């Protein structure tokens, strides 16, 4: 089946008199990998379930390619979903789990067996056909669930936190594996996750959601460097916010606040002049493996910075952030477009 583009237009969902999703507009390119990212309760899973057909819309339209699937029941949508719990059928073997979607489509037994064997081979699970799904490890279950979804050759793949039930090491290796598989199949994929690292590593496009609304749609690089507002920035690990002062590097017109990440802030380093400087007293110094994390008390606020060497508590220190690492925000807490120096002069 050809992979398809997905278009959401004004998708709105109310559950028990409560608005869960508010007028979602989104375009997903065919063959791309999109992550729905946000804190729990932001509506990202509801949005995924709405695309799969498990949550009815109160308003709006969902299109797969040119066809509207808004009013189709789940079984007619051809959207293959991998559930967070994997939802493998425990009364069926691995082979039967994989073969069931084909059985539903009336694929003859011999062809079914062939395709199941092919899928198992692709998932590096050859020989597992007769195994009970309850005997598999978490990572194996995850792969079977993925294989079961892909065996119908769907135009759209939906992943609901597919890696969240796995331990950290397997999760990291599966991220790459999943992404490679997706690229080789060229299948349009939407993945829900609350893990920003996962989204940044895997996605072509990240849809950042909060309180039932889309806050920002951007590439991982763009989102990481230019979060749309302060809350988004905090969610993406921008843990320091300072008010602007006169002598700060002016990299955006009208910026009232700067955000920066701890690893971009250095203590007692010799940077060039075009940097943000703050003096303060060291209130804490913690070894992190790569270096030391210094807590600096500046005018009653605590700022975090990194240092190669430990610094005595109570000592005065200077924190410096290179201008390129500063994220400017306006008085409304929204990101301001960063100005190129040349544009500034012109």
């Amino acid at each position: 089946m050809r992979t398809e583009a997905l278009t959401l237009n004004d998708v709105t969902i109310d559950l028990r008199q409560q608005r869960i999703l508010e007028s979602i507009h989104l375009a997903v390119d065919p063959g791309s990998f999109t992550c729905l990212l946000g804190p729990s309760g932001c509506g990202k899973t509801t949005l995924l379930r709405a695309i799969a057909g498990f949550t009815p819309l109160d308003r709006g339209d969902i299109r797969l390619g040119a066809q509207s699937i808004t009013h189709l029941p789940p079984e007619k949508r051809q959207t293959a979903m991998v559930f967070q719990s994997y939802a493998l059928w425990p009364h069926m073997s691995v082979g039967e789990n994989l073969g069931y979607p084909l059985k539903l489509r009336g694929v003859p037994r011999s062809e079914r067996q062939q395709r199941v064997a092919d899928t198992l081979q692709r998932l590096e699970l050859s020989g597992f056909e007769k195994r009970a799904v309850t005997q598999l490890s978490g990572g194996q279950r995850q792969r079977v669930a993925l294989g079961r979804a892909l065996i119908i050759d769907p135009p759209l793949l939906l992943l609901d936190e597919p890696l969240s039930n796995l331990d950290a090491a397997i999760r990291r290796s599966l991220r790459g594996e999943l992404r490679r598989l997706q690229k080789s199949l060229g299948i349009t994929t939407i993945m829900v996750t609350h893990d920003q690292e996962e989204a940044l590593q895997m996605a072509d496009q990240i849809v950042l959601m909060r309180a039932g609304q889309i806050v920002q749609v951007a590439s991982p690089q763009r989102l990481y460097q230019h979060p749309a507002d302060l809350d988004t920035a905090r969610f993406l690990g921008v843990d320091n916010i300072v008010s602007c002062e006169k002598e700060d590097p002016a990299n955006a017109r009208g910026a009232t606040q700067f955000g920066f990440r701890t690893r971009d802030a250095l203590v007692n380093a010799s940077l060039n002049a075009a940097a943000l400087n703050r003096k303060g007293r060291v209130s804490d110094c913690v070894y992190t493996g790569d270096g030391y994390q210094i807590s600096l008390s500046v005018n009653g606020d605590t700022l975090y910075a990194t240092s190669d060497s430990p610094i005595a508590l109570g000592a005065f220190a200077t924190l410096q952030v290179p201008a390129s690492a500063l994220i400017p925000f306006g008085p409304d807490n929204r990101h301001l477009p960063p100005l190129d120096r040349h544009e500034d002069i012109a």
Partner: protein
Amino acid sequence: MKASTLLTQIGLGLMLGIVAFIVFGPLLNLAMWAFAEQWFYPNRFPTDWGFAFWERVFRPRAGAWVSLFNTIIVALLAVLLSMALAIPAGYALARQALPARNVIMLLFLLPQAFPNLPIFVNIAAIFYQWGLNGTLLGVVLVHSLPGLVYAVWIATATFATVDRSLEEAARNLGASPLRSFKDITLPQALPGLLAASIFVFLDSIDEFTGTFFVGAPEITTLPLLMFNASMGGNYQVAAITALILLIPSVGFMLIIERFLKADVLSRIGR
């Protein structure tokens, strides 16, 4: 220390002995009656043993065979009817967010809450008007009444334990609602549904009151046969009937016990 341990053990032994006597005493007495040919007061044990009464009970004219047949047929039909109603009802109660769910569940308990004698008398009166008295159907209906209570409650609990995402996965991959119910939900719920069937079956096997009011004298089941024999002072026949009554119960439990084993269960529904 040692003395107290000994005392505890003696106490435990005594307790077990008393419990065993309470449980097995009447059964032992029953077993003796079944094989007693002569047993008059004040003898503690039968004076003459034999199978003479067995032969009497199983004489074609005595009606034991017909009663046994009736008992089993009625029990099987009551299971079928109860489960046919309880499966959709239990599924709806477990899955749909029905506003009055708890009220409905309590309503199902209502027939059990009342003393059942007046209920059966009234059912008999209604069935008489409908011409259901003395028919197999009438008896099956009366047996399904208490059966439904067990069946609906157990079925609801069972369906509630079936992970919803298993059904959703089937729907997502192309199964219609009915197909997903048949292929996914039903096999998952099978152990609970079988348990519900056992309850209905065993309840029907020794149901007496309803059968007495609705079925008698046209439809005789084993409990009715036993009642008649006991009332007539024929303890041998009553005891033999009781032992026969054990056959379908034990048989059914053996079958179910086999089915309830996990490895067998996992093969059902393939």
